[in-house]
């Protein structure tokens, strides 16, 4: 079974530029998550989708971050414009269940550096 795929793996941009990350979850998984992991910290949930609907985006900085889940499968996370403090690893995860407390399967992450 293929795991969660993410691209790109690394991205370096200058502040005020835009960037987008892509995630392909495990086939059939209902719930998809985007986490931000700043160096030295644990992952912080940015947004959680159930199929293609958002169930929690309370920690997403909506003035600059946006996310969508196309047809309940792939997802993209966008930052526009980026700030220095957005430098982090962005992790995508998916889980089979609908309610979001079963095992989450994580992708390798996208490491973003904002200069």
């Amino acid at each position, binding site marked *: 079974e293929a795991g969660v795929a993410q691209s790109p793996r690394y991205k370096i941009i200058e502040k005020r530029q835009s960037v987008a990350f892509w995630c392909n979850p495990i086939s059939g998984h209902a719930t998809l998550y985007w986490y931000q992991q700043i160096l030295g910290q*644990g992952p912080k949930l940015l947004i959680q989708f*159930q199929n293609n609907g958002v169930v*929690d985006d309370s920690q997403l900085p909506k003035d600059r971050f946006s996310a969508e889940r196309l047809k309940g499968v792939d997802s993209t996370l966008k930052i526009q414009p980026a700030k220095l403090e957005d430098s982090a690893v962005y992790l995508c995860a998916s889980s089979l269940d609908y309610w979001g407390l079963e095992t989450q399967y994580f992708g390798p992450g996208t490491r973003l550096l904002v200069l």
Partner: protein
Amino acid sequence: AQSVTQPDIHITVSEGASLELRCNYSYGATPYLFWYVQSPGQGLQLLLKYFSGDTLVQGIKGFEAEFKRSQSSFNLRKPSVHWSDAAEYFCAVGAQLGGTSYGKLTFGQGTILTVHP
């Protein structure tokens, strides 16, 4: 709101020695508790989870954890550490989003494990 504290940022043990990683949580109701491991350059992998029932749970790679409600703790243990266990370990608490049937995870800040030969 729920929260998780992992008091130890970095732990060093010798190969073959026993290991205990500490985790304390704060949550008003019965928590759902998880331990994940993150190896360098890789995503997180679930080691074990506690939902209810037996307070001692067994996981993969020889790990176990014990839920102690009175101490609000969920410490991870392994009787004999292998060099391949060197990684970062995250404790997480799951709780329902207010007013919904959905849940979310809150992670601790992690404990880095170094294993000496």
